[in-house]
């Protein structure tokens, strides 16, 4: 595999774009964001059945398509463009890589349920009311006869839509990942009203909830790191798609909106804003493509490339979304106009897993300066 997009990938991207435009237009997104979970279950089922979206990177032996992370990235770009209220980031970005990073029978139990779309799976590790560096003070206890986990996590991506949560908890042999069925006793999930209402967030509290280890004792943080590197790529892909949507909106409006007797896009003040968005977007897209390629072909480069991609895409998307408001003028700051949906998604995505400065500090560590 190479960096070049293949005909099959191009087809996947176009099919996804058409599908999402029809199945998840922004009118539908607005309906979903008014619900408690901010998750479109019907869309998820159709994405799974019609696009194979939920099992793209799941190996064939576990019921998936056995494709690579480049395909996941192209799909995520389209999901980001459409602001689709799907669990792609949680499931394909975090959960599948977490399961593939750790050995264990949990793969065989969980991956087929992800692949066939029957289970949304998310990953929980953040401590409520703390920073992105935090990990929850959750404890796992048990042994051969079975395990339980207790602890609180917040925010958890798509926590209220998840059938299964992979939670980071401290066990007797160190931190490890445990799978918890959300329908089990001792599991309490509270959907959280989110700043970005198109992405579901929840608080999860576990009290002696039945759990299954999905990574060896002591491996929990490594598994989390591997999952986060992949999630960075999925998130960056979504942000590239979102930034493109903002640029498209800005350019379309600047061509038709007239002031002082001419289209505002003929003024350099507006034209140059659009050009700057494109420059940043192009860089973010290239970096994201490279990081997705690393996930498959150069795993030793993944963490660094993914961090650069995430930070770069975050800046590009926020600029695109913020300038889109500005270019639209007064109408851009209304609830009625769609610009704020992208603006909120852009800021929330920029902040997810750490702001740009936090990523830069991580990059500095990774390259050893």
């Amino acid at each position, binding site marked *: 595999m*190479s*960096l*070049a*997009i*293949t005909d099959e990938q191009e087809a996947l991207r176009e099919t996804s774009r058409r599908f999402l435009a029809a199945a998840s237009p922004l009118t539908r997104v607005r309906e979903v964001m008014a619900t408690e979970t901010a998750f479109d279950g019907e869309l998820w089922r159709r994405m799974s059945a019609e696009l194979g979206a939920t099992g793209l990177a799941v190996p064939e032996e576990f019921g998936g398509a056995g494709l690579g992370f480049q395909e996941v990235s192209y799909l995520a770009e389209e999901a980001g463009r459409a602001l689709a209220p799907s669990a792609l980031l949680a499931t394909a970005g975090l959960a599948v890589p977490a399961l*593939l*990073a750790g050995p264990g029978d949990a793969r065989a139990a969980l991956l087929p349920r992800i692949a066939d779309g029957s289970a949304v799976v998310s990953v929980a590790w953040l401590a409520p009311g703390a920073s992105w560096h935090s990990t929850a003070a959750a404890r796992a206890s048990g042994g051969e006869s079975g395990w339980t986990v207790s602890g609180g996590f917040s925010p958890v991506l798509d926590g209220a839509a998840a059938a299964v949560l992979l939670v980071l908890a401290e066990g007797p042999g160190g931190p490890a990942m445990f799978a918890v069925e959300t329908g089990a006793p001792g599991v309490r999930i509270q959907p959280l009203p989110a700043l970005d209402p198109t992405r579901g967030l929840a608080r999860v509290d576990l009290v002696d909830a039945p759990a299954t280890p999905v990574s060896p004792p002591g491996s929990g943080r490594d598994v989390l790191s*591997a999952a986060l590197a992949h999630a960075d790529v999925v998130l960056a892909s979504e942000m590239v798609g979102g930034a493109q949507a903002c*640029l498209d909106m800005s*350019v379309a409006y*600047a*061509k038709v909106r007239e002031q002082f007797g*001419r*289209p505002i*896009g*003929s*003024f*350099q003040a*507006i*034209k*140059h804003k*659009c*050009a*700057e968005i*494109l*420059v940043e977007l*192009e*860089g*973010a*897209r*290239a*970096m994201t*493509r*490279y990081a997705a*390629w690393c996930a*498959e*072909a*150069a*795993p*030793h480069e993944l963490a*660094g*490339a993914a961090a*650069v991609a995430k*930070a*770069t895409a975050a800046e590009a998307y926020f600029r695109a979304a913020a300038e889109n408001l500005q270019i639209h003028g007064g109408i851009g700051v209304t609830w009625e106009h769609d610009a704020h949906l992208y603006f909120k998604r852009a800021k929330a995505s920029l902040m997810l897993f750490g702001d740009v*400065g936090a*990523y*830069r*500090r*991580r*990059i*500095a560590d990774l*390259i050893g*300066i």
Partner: protein
Amino acid sequence: MTAPDPDVSPIPYSDAALEFRGEIRDWLERNAPDHLRGVPVPRVPAPELKANLDRWADTLTEAGLMCVAWPREYGGRGLSGVEVALMNEEFARAGVPRLTRGMGEGLVGPAVIAHATEEQKRRVLPPIISGEHEYCQGFSEPGAGSDLAGLRTRGEVDGTHLVINGQKTWTSGYYKANWMFCLVRTDPAAPKHRGISYVLLPLEVDGRPNGVEFRPITRMSGQALFAESFLTDARTPLDNVIGGLNEGWRVAMTTLGSERGGSATTQHVAFERQFWRLVDEVRKRGLRDDVRVREQLAWAWSQIQVIRATGLGLVADLAAGRSGQGLANGSTSKIRWSEFQRRLTEIAMDLIGPDALVTGAGYELDEWQDEFFAARSHTIWGGTAEVQRNIIGERVLGLPKEPEPAKGAAR
């Protein structure tokens, strides 16, 4: 997860391309001079280095490694952008400069190949390859910078010749050139883009000056790398008009849109070296644990990785037979690298701190001071950052042009 594979390439090079890479690699192993390996090439090399570089240029010429993107029939190798990229990668790998024939190779050649007559191609191209003809550019004028088509230097037909009068400026490389390629107004009555001709002008005829006088312009760094050019009855045969009289704008625009690929996958190499030199400066000064410094360095590293990824993506797409659309078109790349250099050198000055405030005797600048000043010109030459944004806005995004204040003939 798969194990790291050192042979895996992000670019789907064809077998033929890989075979070519092997040839270049072998040739470099046998011929790359050790005394040039890893040696940085400054803007104005000292005499000894200059002599070594000239010898290396001769070696490359003899081996057919000059003007490689030109068609074989005109002395080039007919390499695609992807193959040029591979060649650049091999030179970077060997640590020796891939010398070119400068503006003659990159600007004059492509315009001549696209627009000149067969006779002109046979006459103009070989001396560029051999190094016999070195070109400087006569495009900008005191009154025609970003608005290049507003140029006023006149070219009048006098029998079989064109007689040129006027003033050009920002003529870089004038001190080593013996030819100038220039744009002159040959029809003052025509609309401003229509009355321009693209002309090759010898700076000497039969050993005598041909009416071109250079007045060096000292840059803020103290160096005089370009000049004002005064053209007084400078004569050139009409045979040296490329693409036909009054058709020069079209020719000049071709020059600015040569084949993509080329340096896209190697541009980052020099930036990465510069970056690590800056990290050394930071370490020497005990600043590496400063969080703000680390964030600034990580920003710079990220920019370089974006430049690299953009180039890799472009060449990967081209190698796969795709258009590479939406990746590194000329204007976006130019903005990206020039504004990166501008900011990086500002940061470098800040981090180096007190030492950066002191120069050598006679205003001799160190690398960082020199690059700090040079970076200011990168966002100006070859189309300012603002002109590049207009190009992106209008040609890539399709936004409407600014209304022309006055239509009709140039003054």
